[in-house]
């Protein structure tokens, strides 16, 4: 028998109070684990998605956050589009390695989940969406080889039950009564990424530009080009006279202009561009240059999201951490009250131990150890419960939300939980321990 065995006996003697107080700590810690894991998942989603790109480039005037949110997270719409000419010129800039055009705004139908549809080029799938994480595709799939091919995210496939060969139509601008006639066929299903890519449909840019209303009216496009690039509008009108005439005739007859040979470049627009630069300095230089102009802005998605995390999500995280910390502290007070209240009943017990030769330090240690066993034991139980919940809930959350949660996920900050509980237990145990230390043995024995 040792001191720990004596402590364990004492805990078992008051099994109900002991187990309830330890359970309260366990639930507090389990809650903290849940918060930490959720926070970790959210943090990763915000910090890693799109972090494989040097810059996200979009039209000027809409703010950096909406640009990143719409381009990387598919939340909201950007302020305006960029002319095709800008995309082509950007590829030629020094320091630029690759530019990936994205055209978005259309969705699948409501019945098919209203998933965003993005027109892009096959090379989008050749770049890492996060450092060291590249797209995987289901066996037998192809990446946008044909004009009407589509690649779908894992969640889109799951929700709609789509697989290779499934077909769908696009809803223009998300307006349910404006459905494009053309059918796209799924030729590739992406492996889950745990990012908004899972909830996105990708089609070939070529197909995207062949759909009605995806070309900017020629008259507007000419005016915009003249304004953005400072060119003579009359000269442009003369250059595109045929196009303007065709558009005027179609307007008169109330029909769409059909571009059987594809949309002329002047009428093409892209919503955003993902840019990979040769190095970080090149990204910074490009961002500064773009700021000097009037057409586009280029932002580093990681910096923008980090600011958002720090200013908003980070504060929520701290609030939740403080809240769960307080819950654990309240549990600690519960343990203190339980032990402290038991001290008057235990005076005799302590006096007997002293009479049998226990020193003051030993009875102090017994009480302190009891607080530690209850608090740290509760904490370890909480860690098990918390991670057990995460383990059990991970596949359910992934299935329902598309968020990839590692069932074995462990946050480094968890390493501090047990030392913190140990410190709390020491504080809890000191006062009752001192009561035991000061017990008047002669008096308590014969009371």
């Amino acid at each position, binding site marked *: *028998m*040792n*001191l720990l065995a*004596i402590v364990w*006996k*004492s805990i*078992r*003697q008051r099994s109900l109070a002991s187990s309830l107080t330890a359970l309260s700590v366990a639930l507090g810690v389990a809650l903290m684990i849940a918060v930490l894991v959720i926070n970790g998942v959210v943090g990763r989603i915000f910090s890693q998605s799109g972090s494989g790109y040097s810059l996200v480039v979009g039209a000027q005037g809409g703010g950096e956050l909406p640009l990143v949110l719409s381009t990387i997270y598919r939340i909201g719409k950007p302020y305006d589009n960029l002319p095709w000419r800008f995309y082509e010129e950007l590829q030629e800039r020094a320091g630029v390695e690759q530019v990936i055009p994205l055209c978005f705004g259309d969705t699948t139908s409501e019945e098919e989940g209203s998933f965003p549809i993005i027109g892009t080029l096959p090379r989008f799938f050749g770049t890492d969406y996060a450092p060291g994480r590249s797209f995987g595709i289901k066996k037998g799939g192809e990446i946008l080889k044909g004009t009407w091919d589509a690649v779908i995210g894992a969640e889109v496939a799951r929700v709609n039950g789509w697989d290779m060969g499934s077909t769908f139509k696009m809803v223009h601008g998300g307006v349910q009564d404006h459905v494009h006639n053309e059918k796209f066929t799924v030729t590739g299903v992406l492996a889950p990424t745990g990012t908004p890519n899972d909830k996105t449909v990708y089609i070939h840019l070529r197909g995207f530009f062949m759909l009605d209303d995806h070309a900017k009216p020629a008259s507007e496009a000419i005016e915009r080009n003249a304004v953005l690039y400072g060119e003579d509008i009359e000269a442009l009108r003369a250059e595109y006279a045929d196009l303007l005439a065709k558009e005027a005739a179609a307007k008169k007859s109330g029909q769409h202009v059909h571009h059987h040979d594809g949309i002329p470049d002047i009428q093409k627009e892209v919503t955003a561009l993902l840019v990979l630069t040769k190095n970080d300095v090149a990204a910074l230089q490009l961002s500064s240059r773009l700021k000097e102009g009037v057409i586009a802005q280029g932002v580093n998605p990681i910096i923008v999201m980090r600011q958002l995390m720090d200013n908003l999500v980070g504060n929520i995280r701290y609030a939740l951490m403080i809240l769960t910390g307080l819950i654990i502290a309240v549990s600690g007070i519960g343990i203190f009250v339980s032990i402290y209240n038991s001290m008057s009943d235990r005076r*005799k*017990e302590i006096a*007997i*131990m*002293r*009479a*049998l*030769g*226990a*020193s*003051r*330090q*030993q009875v102090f240690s017994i009480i302190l150890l009891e607080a530690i066993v209850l608090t740290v034991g509760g904490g370890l139980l909480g860690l098990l419960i918390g991670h057990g919940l995460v383990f059990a809930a991970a596949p359910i959350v992934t299935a329902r939300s598309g968020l990839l949660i590692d069932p074995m996920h462990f946050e480094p900050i968890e390493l501090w939980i047990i030392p913190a509980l140990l410190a709390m237990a020491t504080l809890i145990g000191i006062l009752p321990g001192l009561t035991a230390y000061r017990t008047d*043995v*002669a008096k308590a*024995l*014969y009371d």
Partner: protein
Amino acid sequence: MSLLLQDVHKSYREPDGRPLPVLNIARFEVKPTEQVALIGQSGGGKTTLLNVVSGITAVDSGLVQVDGVDISRLHEVSRDRFRAERIGIVFQTFNLLPAFSALENVLLGMTFSGRVDRTYARSLLEQVGLSHRLHHRPGQLSVGEQQRVSVARALANRPKLMLADEPTASVDMAHQDTILTLLRTACSENNVSLLLVTHSPEVSSQFDRVEELAAFNQPEAAA
């Protein structure tokens, strides 16, 4: 000498601050393996004497020598350790810990001396006739059985001196003799000196040496 008290003084404080002398002993001794019954009036200082001898209570002055060691000069921690290793105590109300089994109560006595020996603990319980009750808790034992456990616990560390404070006061007449015989036999077999405090003439009459506390303790003389 198992126990030697010489010029021992112990006073408590009255609520008004005045000293209240309780012990004033010129000399008192118990020889090795000797068994002594100590009788005296209530409030005469018997319990204080036992507490002083066991080192639970420190004396104001004087020599308290147990097994050749003057425990009055020891630091409290050393006195605790000394008590654990060399003194056995049997209480009137047994003072067994209710959450512990009979065997665990005996083991508890060994824990603080740092010499836990399960085999010896079992043999002690066998010696007091409780080999079939090792894992019963005090609440599951009869009063007599509880006192037997407390005797086994007092012997757990192979003490040199056994202190017994009214060990038969809580048991019925039928069990008094049994307990007393058990205690005395256990002390004899284990070569332990016994100092037993009692009110009962039936108990004290069984001892060869009976001491009246008032005969060698004159607290009034110290006042």
